[in-house]
């Protein structure tokens, strides 16, 4: 088979991660990088990667097999529409869109044009969480009853980011909503949220919260809870517990190191890995390699437009629940 030619749209932090994973893959070419504020990087030029500020330069290329969209969220929908004229294989970072109606447009596009559209819910590709999913599916703890997710960032992003993030539920919790669906195989039907601003008053001024507890019902009858904080001083705290009719399954944190120390003062061990890029390193590799496999025609499981829509609807319901202090149907 011929080499596969990929393009990246949006070359920020996450775009760079995807690029380095693509460059490390065999028989895969990164043909072009599009970014409106791109500084031409000679290193890329020297290995044959084109760089442009104009998406038209991508749309004018003939031999593109797949595109990875890592631009700011508000551009996703328009770019998917444009790029779908060029290729059926599109990988888009989360959130897919910021309103239900625009994702519904994309949903029709996917159906009508048979798009192979992957959404970047990378945590599905984390080895621990995919093992958890497999163990649940194998019935290792019987029927599942409750799911409990702890998801805390080590420190809040800059206020400028928060202002454009869509709020904590669309920015941060959206991963956890998707995790609930991924693990349970069921959509969330009802959400009750309690939240507050404990960390930085600037976040409150930006009309957002930094701490939240989410209490959910799933269509399957399962109960679930998520707790979020923008600032866990000890690191990036990412844990999941599932309780079922025959027992429990848990995923704990990945630690910075395996070193433990014991002295007259007691024992110490390392804190969790401090950053999502370190913690979920493998998941970013796997989501792109699965995307590439799907371009080659292999059938892979992936987060699709329905998953993107589900997570967005959950985030919007959560916003409404917070506002009205009442449970909200998704």
């Amino acid at each position, binding site marked *: 088979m011929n080499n596969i030619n990929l393009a990246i749209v949006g070359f920020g932090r996450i775009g760079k991660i995807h690029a380095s994973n693509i460059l490390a893959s065999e028989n895969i070419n990164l043909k072009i990088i599009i970014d409106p504020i791109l500084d031409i990087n000679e290193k890329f030029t020297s290995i044959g990667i084109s760089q442009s500020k104009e998406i038209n330069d991508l749309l004018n290329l003939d031999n593109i097999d797949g595109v990875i969209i890592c631009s700011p969220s508000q551009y996703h929908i328009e770019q998917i529409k444009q790029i779908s004229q060029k290729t059926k294989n599109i990988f888009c970072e989360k959130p897919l869109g910021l309103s239900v109606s625009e994702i519904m447009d994309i949903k029709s596009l996917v159906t009508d044009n048979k798009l192979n559209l992957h959404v970047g819910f990378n945590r599905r590709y984390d080895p621990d969480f995919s093992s958890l999913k497999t163990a649940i599916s194998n019935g290792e703890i019987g*029927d599942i*009853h*409750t799911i*409990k997710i*702890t998801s*805390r960032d080590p420190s809040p992003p800059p206020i400028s980011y928060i202002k454009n993030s869509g709020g904590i539920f669309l920015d941060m919790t959206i991963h956890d909503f998707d995790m609930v669906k991924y693990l349970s195989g069921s959509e969330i039907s009802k959400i*009750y949220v*309690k*939240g*507050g601003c*404990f*960390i930085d008053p600037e976040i409150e001024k930006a009309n957002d919260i930094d*701490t*939240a*507890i989410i*209490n*959910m*019902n799933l269509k399957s*009858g399962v*109960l*679930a*809870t998520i*707790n979020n*904080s923008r*600032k*866990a*001083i*000890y690191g990036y*705290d990412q844990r999941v517990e599932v*309780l079922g*009719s*025959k*027992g*429990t399954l848990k995923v704990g944190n990945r630690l910075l190191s395996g070193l433990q120390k014991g002295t007259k003062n007691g024992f110490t061990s390392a804190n969790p890995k401090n950053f999502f890029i370190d913690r979920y390193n493998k998941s970013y590799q796997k989501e792109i390699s699965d995307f590439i496999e799907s371009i080659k025609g292999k059938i892979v499981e992936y987060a699709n437009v329905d998953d993107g829509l589900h997570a967005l609807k959950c985030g919007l319901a959560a916003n409404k629940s917070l506002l009205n*202090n*009442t*449970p909200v149907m998704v």
Partner: protein
Amino acid sequence: MKNKIINVGLIGLGRIGKMHAKNISQHLPFLNLKSIVDPVPDIDFIQRLDGVQACTNTDDVFLDDTIQAVIICSPTHTHYELIKKCAQHKKHVFCEKPISFSENEIKEIINIMINEKVLIQVGLNRRFDQEFMLVKNKVNDGLVGDIQMIHITNHDASIPEFKFLKSSGGLLFDLCIHDFDMLSFITGEKINEIYVNGSVFIEPRLKEINDIDNAIITLELESGILCTIDSSRQTHYGYDQRVEVFGSKGMISVDNKPDNFYYFSNQENTKRSKIKYSFIERYKDSYITEFEHFYTCITHNNKPIVGPENILSAIKVATAGEKSIVTNQPVMVKK
């Protein structure tokens, strides 16, 4: 100083009554268990305790002037009358939780005990657990800074018989009452609001009596601290009892105690024991410590650190929680 020995009577020789009786005879030399009252006393058990009278009539305790304090472990619906009788006969009371499901009855008990000048301690034993006391002290010392969230896991190892479940008062009054009290114990705050998301997964007959066997509960404390209680009647792997206090300067967590520290690793995996299987094993020390406290309070005429006021607060939360289940809305807790 010579320690004074106090004679006590015990009413209700069920699972917890037997545990208290054994603890007193084995670990609490300053308490002398004189009489045990039960409608059908387990004579074999009582004989093994050596020197304890088996009685079937509560008057055998109330009319015994040498008995200074009564330990009430009978079913909840009998507590109120028994406590009143104790007060009438000037006997100090240790009563298992919850002393009543009725707020008015609890309020009445509070007044009676004050008027009759007798002490009452309530069996919210977890306040005497070493780990939880440590959590409270460290929180008070400011170790986690300002508290932002508290998460409590409270799972039974195996679901009790349906007969017990029917008389238990329900998941919130029976199991979660400890957790409501724990939140107040750790923070010194009252609970403001409760939302209960519950379901029946394990015992379908619970639906007939409007009870649940699993719940995820969201709570807000007076100062705005956000909390969850995650409760289940059955884990199979043991009695899952964890607390996590998350604050601006760090997190304190209390994990489960394993049955033992034996590990076995082979090419397949590493195995370790279940965790302690019941409250009797997990909270063993706290059941002794709470009686040491009770003894000290009687001899020094101090008010016990945990009494009907604390149960009253917890009952109010459970009552609001029941309402939340019915209305499927968050409910403010009565002040």
